[in-house]
C-alpha cells in the first residue's frame, strides 16, 4: 500500500496550476449554479484541491486532516440537502423548472428569469475575477507563493460574493465555507500551530452543523413550539 508521501508525489502535478484552475472553476460553480448537487460537488472538489495546494506549505498530514474535515462537512451538507423538507421543496421546484421564478409563475417566464439570474451571477463572477486578478498583482499576499495568494483571494472573494447573492442557509453555508477555505490557505502557513488548526477544523465542522440545523429545523421545532 502506498504511503502518504508516495501518494502526494504522484499527485504533485495537481499541486500547481491545475489545482488553481480547479479552484477557480469550483468557486465559480458555487456562485453561478443554483443546483445544490453541483454546488456541493464543487465544494467537495474545492476541499481536495485546497488540501493538495496546502501540501506545498504545511505538513502533509495536517493538509490531509483538513481534507477529511472538508469531507465531513460535505457529508453533513449532503444529508441536509437530501432530507431537509425545505430543500426537498426547492428540489421539486427545480425539477419542474420553477427555480428562481418568484411571482412570475409561467414556465417560459421561469426559464427567462432563471437564465437572467444565471447570466447575472456569471457576469458578477467574471467582474470579481478581474478584481481578484488586479488585487493579487497589486497587493500580493505575504508568506504564500503568488499562485496560492491568487487562489486565496479568489476563494475569499467568491465566498463573499455567494454570501451577498443568496439568503438560503445551505448556499450561505457553502459561501462561508468557501471564504474560510481561502482564508485557511493563507493562514495555515502563518500559524502552523496544531491547536490553531484544530480550532479551525472545529469551527468548520460546527458551521456545517449550524447550517444543517438552520436549513433543516422548521421554526416550530426550533422554538420548541412556543411561537
Amino acid at each position: 500500500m502506498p504511503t502518504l508521501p508516495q501518494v502526494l508525489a504522484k499527485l504533485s502535478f495537481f499541486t500547481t496550476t491545475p489545482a488553481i484552475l480547479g479552484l477557480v472553476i469550483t468557486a465559480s460553480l458555487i456562485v453561478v449554479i443554483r443546483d445544490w448537487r453541483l454546488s456541493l460537488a464543487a465544494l467537495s472538489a474545492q476541499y481536495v484541491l485546497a488540501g493538495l495546494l496546502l501540501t506545498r506549505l504545511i505538513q502533509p498530514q495536517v493538509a490531509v486532516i483538513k481534507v477529511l474535515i472538508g469531507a465531513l462537512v460535505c457529508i453533513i451538507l449532503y444529508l441536509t440537502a437530501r432530507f431537509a423538507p425545505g430543500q426537498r421543496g426547492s428540489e421539486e421546484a427545480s425539477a419542474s423548472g420553477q427555480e428562481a421564478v418568484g411571482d412570475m409563475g409561467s414556465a417560459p417566464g421561469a426559464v427567462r428569469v432563471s437564465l437572467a439570474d444565471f447570466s447575472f451571477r456569471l457576469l458578477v463572477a467574471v467582474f470579481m475575477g478581474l478584481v481578484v486578478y488586479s488585487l493579487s498583482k497589486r497587493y500580493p499576499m505575504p508568506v504564500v507563493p503568488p499562485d496560492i495568494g491568487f487562489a486565496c483571494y479568489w476563494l475569499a472573494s467568491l465566498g463573499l460574493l455567494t454570501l451577498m447573492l443568496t439568503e438560503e442557509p445551505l448556499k450561505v453555508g457553502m459561501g462561508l465555507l468557501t471564504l474560510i477555505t481561502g482564508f485557511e490557505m493563507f493562514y495555515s502557513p502563518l500559524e502552523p500551530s496544531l491547536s490553531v488548526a484544530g480550532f479551525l477544523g472545529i469551527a468548520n465542522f460546527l458551521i456545517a452543523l449550524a447550517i444543517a440545523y438552520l436549513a433543516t429545523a422548521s421554526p416550530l421545532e426550533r422554538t420548541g413550539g412556543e411561537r
Partner: protein
Amino acid sequence: MTPGPLFLIALPLALAPVVFVLRRLTLPAAFLASATAFVMAGLCLRPPLHQPVSVFGWGVALSQPVTVLGREFSLELADCYTVGFICLIAAVAFLFAWRVPQGHQFFPLGLVILSLLGAAVMVRLFLFAVLFLWIAGIVAVFIIQGPGRGAVQYLVIVSLATLPLLIAPWLIDFYAVNPDNLALLRYAAVLLAIGFAALLAVVPFHGWVSAVAADAPPVVAAFVFSVTNAVVLLRLLNLLKSYSWLAENPQVFSLLRLGGLLMAIVGGLLAFAQRDFGRLLGYALLSDMGCTLVALGFASSAALTAALLQVAHRSVGLMLTAMGLAVVRRQAGSDSFLNLAGVAKRLPLATAGLVLGNLSLAGMPITAGFPSRWAIYRILPTLDLALAMLLSGAGVALGCLHGLSTLLGHSNERSAEREPLIASLMILGMIVLCIGLGLHPQWLLPAIQRVVESFSLVAR
C-alpha cells in the same frame, strides 16, 4: 486545589450533557443550569481573588493559573468580574426560561457558551480568545433559532469578524521582529478595527442586531447580546492595555468615538421608526452601545467608569425588556404594534417590564440606564455631541412610547389567558432592580472602579 480557570471552564461544560438529557423537563433543566451559573457567579464575584474557596467541598484557587496545551489561562480582577457578570445574566435568563420557554436547547447550549466565553476571557493569548469567541458565536446560532434570517446573519458576521482578528496578532508578532516596518502596525490596527466593529455592531455592520432581536426568543437575544458584548469589550480593553502603540494612538480613540456616534444616531433614528417591539429592542441596544463606545473613546478614568457602568446597567434594561417581550410574544403571538392593542390590560406587568426596560435602554430618568448616560453626557466636551446622544435616547423612548400607546389601546378581543404568575414575579423583581439601580447607581460603583484601576494605562 483546582485552578479557578479550569473549574470555571470545566463546570458548565461537564454539566451541559446532563442538562441536555433533561432539556425537555424544563424545571430540572432550568434549575440545574441556573444553579451552575449562580455558583460560578458567586465564586467570581466573591472577593478576594487570591483566597482559595470551597465549592461543595471542592477547593478552588481562583488566582491559580493553568496551562492547557501550552496556553495559559488565568484570572485577573477584571476577568473575574466579567465572568461573574456573564454568569449572573445567564442564571437569571435560565431561571426565566423555566416559565417562559426559550427553546429546549437554551439550557445546555447556554452552559456551553458560558464555558467558551469564560475561556475567551481567561486565555492570555488574544489569538485563542478570538477562536473561543468564534466557536461560542457559532454555538449561539443553535439557540438564536427563529423563522427569519437572524441566525444566518449572526453566523456570517461572527465568522467574518473573526478572520481579520486572527491575522492581526501575527502582524503584531511580525512587527516585534521587524520594528522598522511600521506599516505592519497600521495593517494590524485596521484589521482589529474591522473585526471589533463587526462584533460590536458598529455601523455599517449593525444589521444583524435587529435581525437577531426580531428572530430569536427575546431572552436568548438578551443573553447573547449581553454576554458576548461584555467579553468583546473586555478583550478590546485588554488589547489596549497590552499594546501601548495602540493605546497611545489618538486615531484609535477617534475611531471609537466616531463609530459610537454613528451607532447612537442610527440606532436612535431607526428605533423611532419601528413598529415592532423585537426590532425596537435591537435598535435600542444599538443606540445604547453607541453611547458606550463614545465614552470609551474619551479614554479617561471617568469615561471608562461611565462606560462600564453602562454595560452593567444595560444588561438589566435589556433583560427586563426581553422578559416583558417574551411574555407578550407568548400570550399575544406577535411583536408587531398592530397586533398588540389592549395587551396592557391583559398583561400589565409584562407591559410595564417591556416599556420600562426600553426606557432604561433609552437612558430615561429613574431607570438603570439613566445614571451611566448622565455620566457620559457630562464627560462629552461639546454640546453637539451631548445633544446627539440625547436625541438618540429620545428616538428610542419615542419608539417605545408609540408602542405603549398601542398596548394601552382598546381591543375587542377577550382573552382568557392570564399573566403567568412566576414569570410576572421575576419581571417585578427586575423592575425593582431597574429602578433601584436608577436611584442608587453607587451599588455597583466600587466594583467598577476597581476594574477601571486595572486599566489605568487605557484610562489616562
